[in-house]
């Protein structure tokens, strides 16, 4: 055992020496692997970021929630058809809630998009005003960063209170606490009583630009009939979601008085609808990433194999000498394999550093537009990248190393460069 260790130490040392002796050549050769590893790391990072965004979407929307809406949130479906659907009225919403048996709770909300709100000295546009109910604030997924949500009393009395999203707070108040401050919606003053933490993701970045006010107060501004109501229904458990969806479909069809043959004139939305979107993005990342990665590793393997062939020829005499003083074929094989592998690992480490730097730069530059991206490379991606590079090294080095090991020692000793 000790004997093996002492030999490996020497093999390692001689590999380092020969790589250092040809530093420029070694560097150029490992560029392919470097780029390949950078692609693998960045691809892994993008996929992990996507997963994180997906999980946040799931927890924001709730895996046990269904949302009856005039609009299909997945972005599928014909826009014109949905546009022409009749609004879901408050009366219909109340009728739906009354008839549901398997839902644990329901609440209604209505939205006004593209609104502008002001404080004494600032304004924010592109804001979503959402009228909702106190029950929304009682959902486990509704956590506040600061302050509180409005109560049922405030809801019933159409109190002029508001809970603002994280993005609204930074736009209007910077780092100051907004609780107790007043904002104006269509000129009407609302006192801020709470702030939401960051909730927006790749699929729902508008959430952070939303202001929540009591539904009756919303009707007071925008009128009772101008907006379609969204009915949110919570299942008692995620397992009961299918039962709830079936019941909901029947109830809404009945309330909307659809004849049996007619298609649904509403959509039942849930977090799951975004799964398809995630899958599509995932496929694109894979297709581009795998293609680029495979190409760079191919170039890397060819380059390293080539340089190792050259190294074997250059060092024919050395191989002869080592064999004459007692090196086995397997020792020589290992020496050249290790050299190729070290080339790859060195390239991989540089690749990881480069992609780490790219991640830092991208997340710094695109903090606002693409805030779902993870700020650092996931460590397991780094491990995978290095493991892949070791495999590439062994693959690239094997044939040259085998040639080195099989050299006839007599011929090798006679060789003159």
């Amino acid at each position, binding site marked *: 055992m*000790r*004997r*093996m260790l*002492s*030999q490996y*130490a*020497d093999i390692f040392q001689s590999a380092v*020496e*020969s790589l250092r*002796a040809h530093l420029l050549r070694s560097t150029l050769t490992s560029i392919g692997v470097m780029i390949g590893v950078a692609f693998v790391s960045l691809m892994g990072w993008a996929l992990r970021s996507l997963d994180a965004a997906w999980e946040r979407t799931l927890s924001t929307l709730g895996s046990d929630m269904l949302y009856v809406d005039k609009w299909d949130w997945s972005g599928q479906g014909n826009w014109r058809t949905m546009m022409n659907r009749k609004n879901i009225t408050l009366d219909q919403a109340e009728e739906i809630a009354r008839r549901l048996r398997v839902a644990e709770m329901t609440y209604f909300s209505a939205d006004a998009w593209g609104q502008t709100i002001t404080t004494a000295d600032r304004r924010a546009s592109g804001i979503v005003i959402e009228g909702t109910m106190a029950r929304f604030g009682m959902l486990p997924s509704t956590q506040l960063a600061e302050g509180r949500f409005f109560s049922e009393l405030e809801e019933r009395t159409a109190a002029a209170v508001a809970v603002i999203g994280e993005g609204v707070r930074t736009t209007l108040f910077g780092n100051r606490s907004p609780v107790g401050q007043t904002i104006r919606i269509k000129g009407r003053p609302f006192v801020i009583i709470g702030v939401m933490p960051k909730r927006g993701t790749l699929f729902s970045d508008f959430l952070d630009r939303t202001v929540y006010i009591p539904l009756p107060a919303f009707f007071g501004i925008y009128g009772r009939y101008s907006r379609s109501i969204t009915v949110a229904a919570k299942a008692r458990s995620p397992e009961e979601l299918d039962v709830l969806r079936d019941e909901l479909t029947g109830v809404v069809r009945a309330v909307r008085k659809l004849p049996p043959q007619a298609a649904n004139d509403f959509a039942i939305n849930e977090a799951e609808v975004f799964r398809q979107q995630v899958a599509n993005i995932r496929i694109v990342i894979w297709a581009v990433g795998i293609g680029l990665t495979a190409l760079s590793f191919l170039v890397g393997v060819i380059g390293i194999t080539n340089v190792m062939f050259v190294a074997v020829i250059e060092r024919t*005499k*050395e191989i*002869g*000498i*080592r*064999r*004459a*003083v*007692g*090196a*086995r*074929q*397997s*020792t020589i094989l290992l020496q050249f394999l290790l050299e190729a592998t070290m080339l790859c690992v060195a390239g991989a480490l540089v690749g990881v550093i480069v992609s780490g730097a790219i991640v830092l730069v991208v997340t710094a530059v695109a903090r606002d537009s693409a805030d779902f991206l993870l700020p650092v490379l996931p460590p397991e991606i780094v491990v995978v990248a290095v493991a892949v590079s070791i495999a590439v090294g062994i693959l690239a080095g094997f044939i040259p190393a085998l040639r080195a090991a099989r050299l*006839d*020692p*007599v011929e090798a*000793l006679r060789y003159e460069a």
Partner: protein
Amino acid sequence: MSTPPLIVLEGITKHYRMGSEIVEALRGVDLTIRRGEYVAIMGPSGSGKSTLMNIIGCLDTPTSGRYMLEGTDVSSLGDAALAAIRNRKIGFVFQTFNLLPRATALKNVELPLIYAGAPPQERRQRAIAALESVGLGDRLRHKPPELSGGQRQRVAIARALVTGPSIILADEPTGNLDSKTGMEIMALFHRIWQEGNTIVLVTHEEDIARHAHRIIRIRDGRVESDMPNPTPIVGAPLLV
């Protein structure tokens, strides 16, 4: 005799394929070399003496025949076993020195001990002792390009001696040296022989061969003559 002879070759042949032709480098060589002998193998180029040396040195295996080294049949051993024999029992000295150019003298001499699996501390000490014994105790950190030809050959001799081998196999050891340095090297071989080592010298130079105590002449792949040399040259040459 209680111990078998060091080397016994029986009917050794070696055939090479050169393109479509079969070259018979050795056509049946019988040879016995005993412990403590100082033997020169002589022959013109193409006589098969290099092939013979490679077989004795376990760098090559015979096509047919039997090679007993210290009572063990080595003619049909595999790579790992032959590597171990070269490592422990054979010390090579070559015409072109064959040192690793980027490694220090010390590292070059340590190399066989690395393959023998000696612990770092021990192999350092043994390598230093071997270099001191050839008069290079002050050149441990020098690399071959920084050394003279004679010094390089002495590093190679230290490398050959460091494992305490059964045979020192020297292939034209003075071929790349001027005659004065060559004689210094031959004096060194004489001392090594006096210290109890067995030396097999391969050469085509009569002057060099006459340092040995037995001269074997090879021609056309066969032993042409095998005679003792009653008047070996010691150290300094008689005729230069």
